[in-house]
């Protein structure tokens, strides 16, 4: 039994590798990758894991006060691309990024720019809620504390409460801020992580499938929250759910095997895709 599963796994791995090897030539992106008022500008981004290329010449803008959704079949590189935007890929030993990614006109891979201050501006919410094993209060206060954003307890209290309010969690936890963050439900934990990110006042929030570990009700709450957060932040969200992309985003980017195939208004992508691969994916022929 186990051998067959293993073999299948191997075969599928071999296939992806072969396809990747065969398709080093990137495909041109359909649609306009630029926006009028960009916060982040990515041009010709390549990402390599060792000898394996995970992202091929991707260019994409993220505008102010908009939600960009990144969709595509699993293993298409959308999460990898997202992690480039705040240099979380730095933590992976043999990962190499080329091309240019700018935040407010500054190259984030520039040697003079520090990943610490970059990440203070570009926050991230992960697939699985990962609150620290601390109290709810301390979870939210963590970012402001390490960055030294405030020195006074009253200011910190204020910051924690506004962050929790913005994350829509305040009413549920205001009476038990001292309880551990892990005691919350999954959806609450994810909103705690969002509050934790907001507390540092970033400009961009990256979300890597933030609802994939949550039930539908918690998902709906988070989706609503994302829509509200758009007022103050730029948001890039990776999702495996096309409905979610359609509900929360203004623009959608479709990734396929490391290529950015098509970018456009969310409406247009879902109603009138221009690329064959996008259409196949939207209509559920694979994915």
């Amino acid at each position, binding site marked *: *039994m*186990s051998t067959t599963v293993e073999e299948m796994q191997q075969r599928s791995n071999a296939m992806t590798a072969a396809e990747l090897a065969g398709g080093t030539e990137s495909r041109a992106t359909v649609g306009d990758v630029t926006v009028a008022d960009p916060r982040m500008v990515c041009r010709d981004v390549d990402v390599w894991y060792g000898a394996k290329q995970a992202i091929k010449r991707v260019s994409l803008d993220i505008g102010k006060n908009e939600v960009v959704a990144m969709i595509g079949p699993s293993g298409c590189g959308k999460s990898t691309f997202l992690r480039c935007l705040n240099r979380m890929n730095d933590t992976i030993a043999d990962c190499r990024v080329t091309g240019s990614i700018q935040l407010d006109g500054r190259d984030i891979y520039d040697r003079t720019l*520090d990943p*610490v*201050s970059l990440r*203070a*501006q570009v926050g991230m919410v992960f697939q699985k809620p990962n609150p620290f094993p601390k109290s709810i209060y301390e979870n939210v206060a963590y970012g402001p504390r*390490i*960055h*030294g*954003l405030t020195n006074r307890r009253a200011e910190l209290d*204020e*910051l924690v409460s*506004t962050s929790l309010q*913005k994350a829509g969690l305040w009413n549920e936890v205001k009476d038990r801020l001292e309880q551990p963050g892990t005691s919350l439900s999954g959806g609450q934990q994810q909103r705690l992580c969002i509050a934790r990110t907001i507390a*540092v*006042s*970033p*400009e961009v929030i990256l979300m890597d499938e933030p609802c994939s570990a949550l039930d539908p009700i918690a998902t709906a709450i988070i989706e609503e929250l994302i829509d509200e957060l758009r007022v*103050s932040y730029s948001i890039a969200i990776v999702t495996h759910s096309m409905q979610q992309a359609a509900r929360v985003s203004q623009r959608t980017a479709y990734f396929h095997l490391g290529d950015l195939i098509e970018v456009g208004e969310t409406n247009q992508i879902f109603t009138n895709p221009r690329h064959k691969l996008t259409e196949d994916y939207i209509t559920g022929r694979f994915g």
Partner: protein
Amino acid sequence: MNKSSTAGAPPRRTIEIVNASLKRRYARERRFRALGLTAVVLGVFFVVLLFADIIGKGHTAFQQTYVRLPVTFDAAVIDPSGTGDPEVLRQANYGALIRAALREAFPEVTERREIRALGAMISVGAPSHLRDQVLADRGLIGTTQEVWLLADDDIDMLVKGHIDRKLPESERRVNDQTLGWVERLESEGRVAKRFNTIFFTHGTSREPELAGIAGALAGSFYTLLLTLLFSFPIGVGAALYLEEFAPKNRWTDLIEVNINNLAAVPSIVFGLLGLAVFIGIFGVPRSTPLVAALVLTLMTLPTIIIASRAALKSVPPSIREAALGVGASPLQTQLHHVLPLAMPGMLTGSIIGMAQALGETAPLLMIGMIAFIVDIPSGFTSPSTVLPVQIFLWADSPERAFVERTSAAIMVLLAFLILMNLSAVLLRRRFERRW
């Protein structure tokens, strides 16, 4: 307006604060990192220091000082009646030959006390060496031969430079007169250091130059052999039962907890057990490899059981299902299919357990392995000591020469331990299997 300061405007403010604090934060980062590196470097330094200290103190023990003197095998002393009876040859006063040779080499020494001091330069073990030579070759009787005689430990230390010749006489173990004699012998080329075979072929002795580790090595060998014979089958059997057959109930839970706790019980407590139960109740003779092996078996069992269970766990269930599927009984499944696959892991665990047993000292002090035993043990029930206890005993001796020998014995012990651990690592690498 308050609202805009917390929601709208802060991005600028945040990044400024962050950037302003960066330098300080990175300084702290570097300090923390340096602290970690320091800890690792300190740890490695201790390893180096320990080994350098032992080797520095002990490497000279592998050589031994000998003095070359023309010895006249005087028939009047060895075999006055000329019978050639081996019993007579064995009983003869060979020390007199050495004294005569010394007097000849230093004719100016006449005073009685000085003559005795002269004789003290040669080891008390030298006469028996002459005897062995004569017994091996009768033709020596009546001739004069240049013979390399084993030097006393003080002379040995002096020649090796462990006794500082520049110190004032009162602070030196060797007085000026003897020093003069030694220097004269040295200038005549009569002093040499040769490989120290005694160290590897003799049992212990009160005289450092005659003390060797052969007895302790033999004792350790017998003890380990018995320990392995006891603990391997029991450990593997227990692991097999607990991992594969045991029902999940209170009794097996209790056994589990017990094994884990026994692994952390201080070794000296096992010594108390050995003294009270094995010697006190069952009357196992003390100071023997047998009783040492019984105690060490109980001590190494947890290690072997835990390692063996891990090895059994790593055998995939599909193997068991396959064997059971063709109609093998559960025991046959284990013996024919699971055990062979788990064997490398079990052996690795056992080697590590044996290495622990080889280095163990404290419990053996309780069961009489500390006795002073000169003879090399010949079996499982003959009185003996083991290498680490020998080290402990020598470390307690005041003579400078014993420091050297203790360090050398430690080097031998460590060499064995490194060999065992290395073979465990190699075994693990060789048979490492991924399912």
